[in-house]
């Protein structure tokens, strides 16, 4: 199983490349205003290649201007040949259709997992009863890729993999996806609970325009607490995350299942900024193996 580090900036990427990770992911997973310039993308790719690490480009949900930007970048990636691109958006997938040099995989925004919810309730019914609860639970811990027609449809479009979250109760459903032939990447540390195109953090900090945003989320995350619900989340830019603990036993389980990749996020959500932080994180997850 590969341990891949996800970096959103060139500086972070260089730390990742200096760490013991197997590969790197570059690009914003959720915010299109953090899409790197064509020049930064080229540099990132070349530095990863020089360091002998696998390179994957990550794309968020895109607006019309975001799509315009992608047309040029995807053309560049297509010429390189064999680069994996994580798409958070059907529009990007449409652009990749027929581009033989690029291998698309579905990003987390494109894989629906009900169990990302922070509520422990799994039904609106106030008192569902034991058997109903069991039946609903079985549905709750599956994903939108646990349907053969969905899987086959995406595969017919050239999709070769998908990204999911570290939710141990969902692992059995992940196993089925792997059996179907898709390569699965499991994200550690944080589960996205809500994503917006209107940035909650930028609004709070009084950023004037998205295009001119100073991108405070590259170094900062807020902890937000709802007192009555006794819930704590991490607000990072336009995403609300809930943090998740990972254990070595679970890592072993993922390895046995045939998971292709564990993705470790850099930045203020995971609090991983340096190569040492990353090496420690990989060691903690893998048990030093």
């Amino acid at each position, binding site marked *: 199983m590969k341990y891949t580090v996800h970096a959103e900036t060139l500086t972070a990427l260089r730390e990742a490349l200096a760490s013991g990770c197997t590969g790197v992911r570059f690009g914003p997973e959720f915010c299109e205003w953090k899409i790197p310039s064509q020049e930064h993308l080229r540099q990132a790719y070349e530095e990863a290649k020089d360091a002998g690490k696998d390179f994957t480009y990550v794309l968020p*949900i*895109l*607006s*019309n201007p975001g*799509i315009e930007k992608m047309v040029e970048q995807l053309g560049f990636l297509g010429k390189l040949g064999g680069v994996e691109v994580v798409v958070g*958006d*059907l*529009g990007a997938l*449409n*652009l990749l259709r027929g581009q033989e040099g690029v291998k698309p995989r579905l990003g987390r*925004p494109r894989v629906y997992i*009900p169990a990302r*919810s922070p*509520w422990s*309730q799994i*039904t*609106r*019914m*106030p008192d*569902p009863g034991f058997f109903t609860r069991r*039946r*609903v639970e079985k*549905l*709750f811990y599956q*994903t*939108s890729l*646990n*349907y*053969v*027609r*969905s899987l*086959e*449809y*995406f595969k017919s479009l050239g999709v070769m993999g998908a990204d999911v979250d570290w939710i141990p109760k969902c692992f059995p459903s992940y196993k089925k996806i792997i059996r179907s032939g898709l390569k699965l990447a499991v994200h550690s540390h944080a589960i*996205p609970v*809500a*994503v*917006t*195109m*209107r*940035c*909650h953090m*930028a*609004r*709070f900090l009084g*950023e*004037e325009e*998205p295009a001119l945003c100073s991108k405070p989320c590259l170094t*900062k*995350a*807020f*902890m*937000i*607490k*709802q007192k*009555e619900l*006794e819930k704590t*989340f991490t*607000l990072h830019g336009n995403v609300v995350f809930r943090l998740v603990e990972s254990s070595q036993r679970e890592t072993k389980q993922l390895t046995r299942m045939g998971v292709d990749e564990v993705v470790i996020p850099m930045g203020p959500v995971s*609090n991983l900024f340096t190569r040492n932080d990353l090496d420690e994180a990989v060691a903690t997850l893998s048990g030093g193996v």
Partner: protein
Amino acid sequence: MDAVDETVVPKILAPIKAYTGAVRVVDAGADEIYCGVRTPGLEDFELYRGASTEIPTYDEFHKVTEYAHSHGVEVLVTINQPFILDSMEKTMVKHIRECVEAGVDSFIIGDLGMLQLVKEVTEDVGLCASTYLSATNREAARFLERAGFSRVVLERQVPLEQIAEIARDVDVEVEAFVHGSGCSNINVNCYFYHYKFPAMDQAYLGVDGIKFPCSLPYEVYDGEDEGVYLGTYPILDAYTFCSLCKLPALIQSGVYGLKIEGRGINEEYQASTTRLYREALDLLRQDDEEGFQRMLETIKESFVPLPQTLPMNNLQELCCEQGRCYYAPKFHAPYKEKLAWQAWTKLQCKLLVVQP
């Protein structure tokens, strides 16, 4: 104001959850109606919306289609789940067949696997891509067109100028939301399900307007546990939304349909909102700018709860004065303020009329 070409006046899509509601919205001027129909075997599996927002039986749904069709109104059924599983397939096949038999015109579909299934079960219905498919750009709309959809509902967060670009660049019908409770987050990428449980009810105490988890106050800290306390804010605030003032621009954008939210809300709301948008669109169709502006002013400024202002509960205080028009830029919109006592009194008066 330019005269509006009759052929480009968008359709009004009204929500319903019962036959009686269908009669009222059709009479109020809906061009199309949309609803959920309860799916036997999946009633307990409720993520975003509950069974109470759906037409309870196929027989009642049949009555809906009969009434709507007799008035030239099409009926769309939304397949409520944002995904389908192998274990749900048999149930869904039966559901699709029952709806087709009862006269559905189109299905609103939120999953590409579900689309394949519907196409296999029936060829006689329209296929409409739900917001669950998050169409936020022209390429996503093109993708959905190639997948077989004849209509695409754009994600709520697509700004007005981009709606116009998408409507211009694609061959499918494009639909946009115009009125309702709004969403702070991208529809299918939000897992703050609107479940009710005791702690949630407790948390909603003192929250004005729409009560969703994203409208709750949150204590905000800079950094981790030891971080600096920055205050308590509705930092994930939901936007109550209204597009009445933006109707001329929406017509110019070339959208096919204007969708009113509110399958879960009462029939009074469903009918009066439909009537309000019908009247506004009709004024614009007749090129009566003065009448349209007069209508807006009446709605914004009336203190007395006029019947036509019912769906606009505290519009002035919650939307207009706080810069919360649906299609206005919201990047730095202020957080909702507590209602003043006058506004609170007005809201209670209106609620008394809506829910006698």
